[in-house]
């Protein structure tokens, strides 16, 4: 095969597909795993509701963007990765931080601006970080995380490491330069990365299809000859399976993938947004596809969960959440003497592999 032919056949291999809802059959799944997904989704739901409540009580400052309505997307994303894989996210990332294993106490404490927060109170809602969990940051600048994530994947490829990178972003991000520059580089350098677009259908108040010339965002991958797929973001198993497939490609073939998970933002852009620009009927319709309620129904229909078990999980999440809030409330603020800590990294300490 000459070079041209081989390139053409490579291109054919790169699928572009819009898969519908999950093809995963519950009977092929481990019950405990399914229950854990449900538990995680419910926890994130309550965590975000609590965040809004604490914001309104002025315990949390700044901007505060919630994952409400996106819980299946968040949990499916996390479930498709291995524990040591690296995650970069945008500013709507509380759920991802918790989902990747950062203790909820540390995430809530970060929201409260406390020293025990996962960024020691220096970052806040938009900037969760935990190097030990390879959670490499929430980023408040739209698109800023994408070149960084691409560089992390570059470092992993450079070392021949087993791990991969998953980079979460919103729909509006796909209209900016960093997205396109990064996808191009990931493809030419063959980087082990998954670009994961949460299409919650609004970039702040601008409908996704008004901001993007291409409404099906996953199709933008074709400009970079990249494997691209659209999944139902309300189906945790569909999201997980798309992530797993992409992770395998990244790990085994060093091929990047673009995933678009279609979801719906239940509330305004941030806690303070009264959401006046969306049609009420549309919002009601969006909320009626509640990923958590739908998954609970599926589990019940399959006989995997009954009302008592659901009530148990609800009780457990409330307890976990109460513990997180208590921890955040009782933690201290960073001492003002620490204001200049971390402006510059010391040169004596080793800046070794992370």
């Amino acid at each position: 095969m000459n070079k041209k032919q081989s390139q053409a056949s490579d291109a054919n291999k790169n699928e572009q597909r819009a898969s519908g809802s999950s093809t995963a059959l519950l009977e092929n799944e481990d019950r405990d795993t399914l229950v854990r997904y449900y538990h995680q989704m419910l926890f994130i739901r309550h965590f975000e509701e609590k965040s809004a409540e604490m914001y309104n009580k002025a315990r949390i400052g700044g901007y505060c963007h919630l994952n409400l309505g996106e819980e299946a997307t968040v949990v499916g994303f996390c479930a498709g990765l291995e524990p040591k894989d690296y995650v970069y996210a945008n500013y709507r990332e509380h759920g991802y931080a918790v989902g990747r294993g950062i203790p909820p106490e540390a995430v809530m404490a970060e929201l409260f601006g406390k020293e025990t927060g996962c960024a020691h109170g220096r970052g806040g809602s938009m900037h969760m970080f935990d190097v030990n969990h390879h959670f490499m940051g929430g980023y408040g600048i739209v698109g800023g995380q994408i070149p960084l994530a691409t560089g992390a994947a570059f470092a992993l490829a450079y070392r021949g490491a087993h791990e991969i990178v998953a980079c979460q972003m919103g729909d509006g991000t796909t209209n900016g330069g960093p997205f396109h520059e990064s996808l191009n580089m990931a493809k030419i350098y063959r980087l082990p990365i998954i670009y994961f677009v949460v299409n919650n259908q609004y970039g702040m108040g601008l409908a996704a299809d008004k901001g993007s010339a291409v409404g099906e965002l996953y199709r933008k991958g074709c400009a970079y000859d990249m494997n691209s797929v659209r999944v139902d973001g309300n189906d945790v198993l569909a999201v997980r399976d798309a992530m797993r497939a992409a992770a395998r490609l990244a790990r085994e073939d060093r091929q990047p993938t673009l995933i678009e998970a279609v979801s719906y933002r239940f509330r305004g852009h941030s806690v303070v947004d009264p959401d006046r620009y969306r049609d009420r009927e549309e919002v009601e319709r969006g909320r009626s596809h509640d990923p958590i309620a739908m998954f609970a129904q599926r589990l019940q229909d399959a006989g995997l969960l009954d009302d008592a078990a659901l009530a148990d999980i609800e009780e457990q999440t409330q307890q976990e959440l109460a513990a997180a809030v208590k921890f955040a409330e009782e933690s201290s603020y960073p001492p003002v003497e620490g204001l200049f800590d971390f402006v510059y990294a010391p040169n004596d300490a080793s800046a070794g592999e992370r």
Partner: protein
Amino acid sequence: MAEITFRQALNETLREELTRDENVFLIGEEIGNFEGSYKITAGLLKDFGPRRVVDTPIAENGFVGLATGAAMLGLRPIVEIMTINFIIMAMDEIVNHAAKIYYMFGGQCPIPMVIRTPGGGGQQLSATHSQNLEVWFSHVPGLKVVAPSTPEDAKGLLRSSVLDNNPVIFLENLALYNVRGEVPEGYYTTPIGQAKVSKEGTDVTVISYSRMASVALDVAHRIEQETGLSVEVVDLRSLRPLDTETIINSVKKTGRGIIFEEDWRTYGIGAEIAATLQEEAFDYLDAPIKRVASVEVPLPYSKPLELAALTGARQLIEAINELAPRRRRR
């Protein structure tokens, strides 16, 4: 001591660093196959291969962000931006990310990265290819900024920059690349944040950096020979952190200070230093601080206009003559 050019000093140091540390890699536009727009990376792709010497697409924000991300995982990228004018495309990744990540995430993740880039006018490249943007970076906590004027310091500071665990903007100047200078044998480093008194004097202090520091040194020697006026020259070498101690001590000694910069005057390095001197050495000043800088226009193409816009030796000599103690004036 061997005499080499600024370009050779950089090339040798890059080669050394690639050899010394497997985590060091070079990345930028045209640094490999083309061997660098200004040939700073000549021969390195051939000797170290495409894994260590990475040609990029024309996407400054993308590849600077990529380098920052690689540094987050512990690699030590040395980025080349073809000229400083193109760095403007990468400002988000530099200012919002590279400069903030260590602080904003509570000290969990240093960014050991060097960004090398040449600035400077005088090559008839017109307005978008002739800028000096050091102030933009020197303003930002979290960044370090160095601007050597000699091959010796280019080597020493590039080594220090690669060893540093923070993002360092390493400023070069197009008109310095062919300048020759003596370089010590063996391994040495030049500390970041330490200015150098490149010529001692008693009547007036000229404070400068990068190419203008080398012009200042020539002017100082010439004036001393011609008039007997004793000019001290402070070569800042680093702009952030700024070695205020050396500047203050020099002006306390001479009582007179001139800041000489190729950049525009307003809000410039000179403004910062003049403010520092009036705060810290007010009682020692025998005359107002002077700033000698370029004229505030986008640099024009046509040679006579370009010459009229750029500062240089003539403007510095005029300033020294205006400021010098009366007993020494011609």
